[in-house]
C-alpha cells in the first residue's frame, strides 16, 4: 500500500474540494505542453525527425520575454501599458525563437536532409546541448525572476470562483494558448500554405513534383513551431515567474511526451496530448502522493501506445512504394 494514497469514496469530500482547482491547474499546464508539442509534431510530420533542440527554443523564448520585461521596467515596475508589455514580450519571443529555429534548420538539419535519420537526431541533440550552454555562458546559471506584480492591478490579480482560486495570469495563459492553437488549426486547414504543408507532410517527394517549394515549407514549419514554443516560454515565465537555462530540458521532455501521446505528426493530436498530459499530472496528485505524478503520466503513455501504437489521433501512414 502506498503511503498517502487516497481512494475515491474513502475521502470523497477531499476529492470534490480539490477537483475544480486541479482542473484549472491541469488546463494551464496542458495548454503550455500543447504549444510545445506542436513544434515537435510539425517537424516530425515533415522531416520524420525528433527535434530535440525544441526545448531550448522554448527556453530562449522565456529569456527573450524576461529581457523585454526587464528593459521595460524600472525597480520592478513597468513604465508602459501592461497589455503592450505582455504583447511585446510574446511577439519578440516568437520572433527570436523562430529566428533561432530557422538558423538551426539551415545549419544543423538541412545539410543532413538526405543522411540517415539517426544523423539528424544526433545533430538535434548537439544543437540542444549547444544552445543550452550558449545561454548558460551568456546569461549565467541563476534563475531570472519575472517581476510581474506591477503588470496587473492588485484587485484583478486573483479571482475567486466558488472554491476555485484563479489568477489573472492563469486566465490569460489559458486564453492565449487556446487562441494560438485555434489560429494554427485555421491556418493549416484553410490557407494555401497550410495545404502545402499538409501535402509536404504526406509525401515530400510528390509535393516537390507538384511544384511546392519544399525548402520554403520546411522553413515555415520551423518558424511556426519555434514561434509557438517561444510563446510558451514567455507564458510560463509570466505564470511561474522564473526562467533559467535548464527549463528547456523538462519542458522539452513533456512536450515530446505530449506529442507522442496524441500521435506524433498530428497537430490536433499534439494539442489533445498536451492538454491530457497536463490534466493527468494535476489530477494524479489528488489520489497519489505527488512523487508519483510523473509515474502516472508515463503509465498512461505506455498504455495508450500499447492499445494504439500511433497515439491517440495518429494515423497509420500507408507504406510508400
Amino acid at each position, binding site marked *: 500500500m502506498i503511503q498517502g494514497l487516497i481512494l475515491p469514496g474513502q475521502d470523497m469530500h477531499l476529492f470534490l474540494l480539490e477537483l475544480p482547482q*486541479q482542473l484549472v491547474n491541469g488546463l494551464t499546464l496542458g495548454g503550455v505542453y500543447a504549444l510545445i508539442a506542436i513544434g515537435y509534431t510539425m517537424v516530425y510530420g515533415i522531416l520524420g525527425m525528433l527535434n530535440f533542440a525544441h526545448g531550448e527554443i522554448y527556453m530562449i523564448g522565456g529569456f527573450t520575454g524576461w529581457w523585454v520585461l526587464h528593459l521595460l521596467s524600472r525597480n520592478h515596475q513597468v513604465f508602459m501599458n501592461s497589455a503592450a508589455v505582455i504583447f511585446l514580450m510574446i511577439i519578440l519571443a516568437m520572433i527570436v525563437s523562430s529566428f533561432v529555429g530557422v538558423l538551426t534548420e539551415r545549419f544543423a538539419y538541412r545539410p543532413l536532409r538526405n543522411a540517415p535519420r539517426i544523423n539528424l537526431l544526433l545533430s538535434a541533440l548537439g544543437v540542444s546541448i549547444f544552445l543550452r550552454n550558449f545561454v548558460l555562458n551568456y546569461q549565467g*546559471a*541563476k534563475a531570472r525572476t519575472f*517581476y510581474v*506584480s506591477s503588470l496587473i492591478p492588485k484587485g484583478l490579480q486573483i479571482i475567486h470562483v466558488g472554491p476555485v482560486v484563479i489568477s489573472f495570469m492563469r486566465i490569460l495563459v489559458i486564453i492565449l494558448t487556446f487562441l494560438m492553437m485555434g489560429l494554427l488549426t485555421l491556418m493549416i486547414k484553410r490557407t494555401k500554405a497550410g495545404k502545402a504543408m499538409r501535402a509536404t507532410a504526406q509525401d515530400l517527394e510528390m509535393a516537390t513534383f507538384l511544384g511546392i517549394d519544399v525548402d520554403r515549407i520546411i522553413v515555415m514549419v520551423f518558424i511556426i513551431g519555434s514561434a509557438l514554443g517561444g510563446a510558451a516560454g514567455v507564458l510560463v515565465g509570466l505564470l*511561474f515567474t522564473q526562467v533559467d537555462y535548464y527549463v528547456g530540458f*523538462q519542458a522539452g521532455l513533456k512536450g515530446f511526451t505530449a506529442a507522442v501521446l496524441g500521435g506524433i505528426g498530428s497537430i490536433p493530436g499534439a494539442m489533445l496530448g498536451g492538454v491530457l498530459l497536463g490534466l493527468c499530472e494535476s489530477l494524479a496528485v489528488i489520489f497519489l502522493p*505527488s512523487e508519483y505524478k510523473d509515474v502516472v503520466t508515463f503509465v498512461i503513455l505506455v498504455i495508450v501506445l500499447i492499445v494504439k501504437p500511433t497515439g491517440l489521433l495518429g494515423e497509420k501512414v500507408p507504406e510508400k512504394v
Partner: protein
Amino acid sequence: MGKRFRIFMILGLALCVGGFFASANAAGLVDPATGMKITEIHIGDAGAFTGDAASPCMEIFHSAQIALDEWNAKGGIHGVKLKHIMGDDAMDPAQAVNVARKFVADKLMFGVIGPPMSSIAQATMGIYASGNLACITTAVSKPSLTEQGYKNFFRLCARNDSHGWNCALFIKNYLKAKKVAVLNERDAYCVNMAKETIKGLKKLGIKDILHETIVAGAKDYSSVLTKVRVYNPDVLFFVATTAPDQAIGVRQAKELGIKATFLGTEGAKDVKDFIEASQGAAEGAYVYHFAPDIYAIPAAANYVKKYESKYGTISGFGPTAYEAMNILLAAINRAAADGKITRKEVIQELHKTKNYHGILGFPVTFNKKGDLEGGATYFFKVVGKKFKQVAVMTGK
C-alpha cells in the same frame, strides 16, 4: 677571452649569493611526506559558485577570503603566503568530483572550505579523505555524513537531526501549530531534513501531518499546493535547497489562498532571491538558519564592516565561512610551527579545536566525529525587506 671568463665568474658568483639570500629570506616550510618545499599554502573553496545557489556560495567565498587576507596581512603562516582557490561545482555532483580530484592533486593545498551541500559532500568526501585533505563545511547538515568514520571532515553548523528537532519545537511551541504540511525536494539534504522534522513533530504529539514531494526546478508547484490547501494546515514547511524555488513556493501558496504560515529553509534566507523574488508573498514568512543574526554580535563588527564595504548585506552563510577559514588557518599554523607540515597534521590539529571564540557568538568545539558540539537553530521572520531573528532553539 679572459675578460669574458671573468664576467661569467662574477655573474655566477652574484647569482649564487643572491640565491643564498633569497632562500634564507623565505622561512622554510617543508612537507616531510613528499620532501617538497612549500612556497605557498593553498586553501581550496568548494561550492556552487554558479547556478541558483551562487549567491550564498559567493558569500561563503568572499567571507573566507576576508579571513585569509587578514592572515596574509600578518605575514602568512611561517612566512609563507596563503592563496584561496575557488572550485566551482555548479551544484552538480559530477563536477564536484572533478573539483575534489583537482584539490587533492594540488600538493600545496592543506585544507578546504566546503562543500556546502549535502549531496555534493556525499559524492566527494571519500576523495578528500583519500587525499587526507581536511574539509570544514559551513552548511552541510545531513547527519550520516559524519557517521562514516572519515577523519578529515568537520562541520561548523548543526546537523539535520538537531535542526529537524529544533524546527519541530519551533512549529509546535512558537507557531502553535496543530496541523502541519511538509513538502520536500528529493535530494539528500531535503529528504533528510523533512524526515527529521516529521520525526520530531510526531514525538511532540503532532499527528496531523501531510508529507509530499516536489520536484526542484519545476517552477510549478500548484498541483501539490492545491492538495495542501484542501488539507488546510497551520504551518507549511517548504523544504527546498535554493531561494528561487522557495520564492515560487511561497508565491504560489499565497496565490492559491493557503493561509498556513510558511516556514522555509536556510537556503531561503536571501533578500534578493527570496524576499524580492516572491514579489511581496514572503511577508510574514519564517525561515530557519544555522547561524545567528550576525549584526547582533559585537565580536563580528569588524568582519561585518569589511564585508559590507565590499559586497553588500550579509544573508547568513558568510560568517561561518569566515570562522571556518580562521579555524582552519589556526590549525595549519599550529601544524607548521616546527617548519614542517603535512595534511595529516592539519587534520590532527583541527581535532584539537576546543572552545574557539570567534565571531559566531558561541564557542566552537569539534567532537570526535568532526561535528560541532551543541548546535542551535535560529529562526527569522520576514519583515519588509529584512530577516528579523525571532527565536533560537537549542533542543529544549
